[in-house]
């Protein structure tokens, strides 16, 4: 097994041993799923049709935006990344290993959501499993990349949570998780296209916009990881000039480009 595979494995195990990880990766998204599905399916009959992708995207956002950034910032602040540096751990693995580990946990959560929604809510199973897997992977890459980017531009864990909320809350409201994107006013619909969650829901839904959204998510994920590596710091006291962090906004380019499509 390569050092990187071992690293991902240890990150996965470490997350199981850590209560805050377990809460944010499992308990919170699954509780939210249970509560929301209980009343949303009564309020909106069509919610049953999108509950699996919506809750899968929600779980990915919890893990990638709320759990991963403060943990990565904490690793930088408590000197763990410095240890990585002196023990020869490359910077890309310091970002990619926790991201892949989180996605492993999210795959489990998605399976639990899919099975439970099908059995208890009568939610339809994905009609095109290949498209579902592709949409999930692209969404995971986009959100994990964004989480990594939030971590590298934030000085503290609290700052990371605040920055993540700038994406997280609009994504819940406008991303098509709770209500269909078609129900949004046109102007808000355009704003929503700047959010990975909106493209994730479009990709899961299939149809004419799915390919563009899949491409935007994949490009956004790759660009976010590249920018994270460019802005990565091993050490909390070894900070780069703040203006350079504005480069992180370039991660939105693939999503903004879909407005022109």
């Amino acid at each position, binding site marked *: 097994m390569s*050092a990187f595979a*071992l690293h991902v494995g*240890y990150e996965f195990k*470490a997350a199981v041993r850590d209560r805050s990880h377990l809460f944010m990766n499992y308990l919170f998204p699954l509780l939210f799923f249970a509560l929301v599905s209980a009343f949303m399916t009564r309020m909106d009959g069509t919610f049953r049709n999108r509950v699996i992708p919506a809750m899968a995207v929600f779980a990915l956002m919890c893990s990638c935006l709320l759990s991963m950034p403060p943990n990565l910032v904490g690793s930088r602040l408590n000197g763990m990344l410095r240890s990585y540096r*002196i023990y*020869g*751990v490359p910077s890309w693995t310091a970002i990619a290993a926790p991201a892949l580990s989180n996605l492993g946990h999210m795959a489990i959560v998605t399976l639990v959501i899919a099975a439970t929604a099908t059995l208890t809510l009568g939610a339809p199973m994905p009609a095109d499993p290949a498209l579902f897997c592709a949409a999930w992977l692209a969404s995971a890459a986009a959100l994990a990349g964004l989480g990594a980017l939030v971590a590298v531009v934030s000085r503290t864990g609290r700052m990371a949570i605040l920055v993540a909320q700038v994406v997280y809350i609009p994504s819940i409201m406008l991303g098509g998780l709770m209500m269909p994107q078609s129900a949004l006013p046109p102007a808000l619909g355009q704003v929503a296209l700047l959010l990975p969650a909106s493209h994730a829901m479009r990709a899961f839904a299939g149809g004419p916009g799915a390919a563009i959204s899949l491409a935007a998510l994949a490009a956004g994920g790759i660009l976010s990881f590249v920018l994270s590596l460019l802005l990565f710091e091993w*050490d909390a006291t070894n900070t780069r000039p703040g203006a350079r962090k504005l480069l992180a906004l370039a991660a939105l380019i693939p999503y903004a480009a879909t407005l022109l499509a």
Partner: protein
Amino acid sequence: MMDQVIAVSGFTKRYGSAIAVDRLDFGLGRGEIFALLGPNGAGKTSTLECIEGLRRADSGSIEVFGLDPVKDSGKLARRVGVQLQAQGLPGAMTVRETLGFFARYRGMDAGSGASAGLASAERLGLGPKLGAQVSTLSTGQQRRLALALAIQHDPELVILDEPTAGLDVETRDELHAMMAGLRSEGKTILLATHDMAEAEKLADRALVLVAGKRAAEGSPRELTSQGEGRTRISVSTSHNVFLLRRPELPAAESLPGEGAYAMYRSADPAATLSALLSCLAASGDELLDLRVERPSLEERFLEIVGRRPA
């Protein structure tokens, strides 16, 4: 001449307008223990961090095994073992996992990484803790683990930043024995410490930094024999001839007495003692006690940094 392991030339490190280290030069030969000494803020950690590749020098050059510590950090990670002063370790991993994890990144295969990790853990008394999560270890045990990580890949150079700070006497003695063992294996050790007794006991050479500049360099014996740190001579006689008469002795300065002892500080102990014994014989007094104490490195250090010993 010994092989040069570390070569520091004209090294300067600034933080904004503050100069942490100012045009520092020193070299470290293979197989020696070199101590970096200095008060807080003297520039020790900045110097170490630039040698470890964690920071860049603003000017001057630093070479470790002829390589650039920042650009060649990957290559050096296999040849250098580092224990940081403030070291974060993955708290949710077990000791065994942590050793195996970092061994793999240093290019060791699963088998040799595991056995080297176990050997270094055993050497540092962590054998019973291999299955424990790092977050459950005491401060001393975490320090031992950091040291185990620094030596598990059999590095040629070991850099230790305050390795015994905050440890109990027994653990400190064990770590001193381990460092002496590493030297006997031919390892080179760069040690930053506030513990002068530790430096005096272990170091072949020491560099004293004050306000980012070199204040003194040499072996502990050379350092203690320089400056005003003269040998202290205490003498007690039955009729207190030295306390009462205060005879002048060559190369010696008379100090205030301490109890039944007359005190002198001598720059030439042989000459002073010879004169002292002649004086004693001439007075007919009876010698009760005579003590000759070389100045400690700590006394000399305080003198160098401008805080004379009490």
